């Protein structure tokens, strides 16, 4: 009976925490008010700005934002088609557009928003069993040019090191890290950072998510 009461109390406490976990002062509407004013429907993903030494990252990372934005309820222009257009129209370097006019993307593609990303870190430290990505996400309106959403995330995923630290454990950890592709960590980073983006037209909570709480503008997460 005592055990049952204890279990019941625990359940009630857990329920309280689950329901209150998101009640912070910052909300989607307070952080990103113009997303609600402009009511954007479509988004084009711009080629990432790569500040790392890995040239191929730009291509690899590009399409990874497609799914998360579509799941947020936006019309997302196909990354393959958009990239093809960017390459043929000499618009492959987003550095040229990140602060400039976005009218061409509105007039040629019909996009309401343009997502720019800056990849600052894309590292795999095999011996330390660590993968780190650091990416900044900037969403600008193609109509006004204004920044409507801006967040930065640094995500480190480490393979759990075992307490025994035997040579076999270490070898397993190193192998696990080596086999984990950086794109998986980048996808997680996309999901975490873009989670705060207000929902688009096709989202279930479109225009109903103004009071959902949001996290900090800069996120630094370490996961095991």
């Amino acid at each position: 009976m005592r055990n049952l009461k204890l279990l019941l109390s625990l359940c009630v406490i857990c329920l309280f925490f689950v329901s209150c976990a998101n009640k912070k002062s910052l909300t989607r509407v307070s952080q990103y008010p113009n997303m609600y004013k402009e009511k954007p429907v479509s988004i084009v993903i711009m080629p990432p700005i790569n500040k790392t030494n890995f040239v191929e990252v730009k291509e690899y990372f590009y399409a990874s934002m497609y799914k998360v934005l579509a799941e947020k309820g936006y019309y997302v222009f196909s990354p393959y088609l958009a990239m093809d257009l960017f390459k043929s129209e000499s618009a492959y370097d987003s550095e040229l557009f990140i602060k400039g006019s976005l009218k061409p993307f509105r007039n040629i593609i019909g996009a309401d928003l343009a997502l720019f990303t800056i990849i600052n870190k894309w590292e795999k430290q095999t011996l330390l069993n660590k993968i780190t990505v650091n990416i900044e996400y900037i969403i600008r309106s193609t109509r006004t040019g204004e920044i409507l959403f801006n967040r930065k995330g640094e995500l480190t995923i480490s393979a759990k090191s075992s307490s025994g630290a035997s040579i076999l454990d270490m070898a397993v950890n190193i192998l696990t890290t080596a086999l984990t592709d950086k794109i998986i960590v980048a996808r997680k980073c996309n999901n975490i950072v873009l989670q705060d983006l207000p929902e688009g037209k096709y989202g279930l909570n479109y225009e109903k998510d103004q009071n959902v709480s949001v996290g900090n503008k800069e996120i630094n997460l370490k996961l095991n």
Partner: protein
Amino acid sequence: MKKLKLIIVICLISMGCISCMSSKSLYTWHNYEDASYVYTKKQTDKTLDKLIKEYKYIISHQKGIRKAVPPGIYAEYAYLLIKMNNKKEGIVMLKKEVELYPESKMFVGRIIKQLEK
């Protein structure tokens, strides 16, 4: 005693519901992300074939909340079909994209016009 058990069960179910409330996807993506990534990394007949299979699966097996093909998928499938010289089916897919997502008309409509010239 019975009441207490019932309360506990209700609590557990509620917790489950709260944590799962927003976890369902709008669309079914199957293995699209991996197939697309592998194709981007290495463009071979094998990786292309896997990606094409993904598009076909996504188009015919939508179990997400919207029960609709995700935005961009018809257009992307069309893009690869056209690259494989299957222009006719490619145009059909592009038209489906515009029909399902009128927001794509400016961009995709222009591609259709060019292809139909």
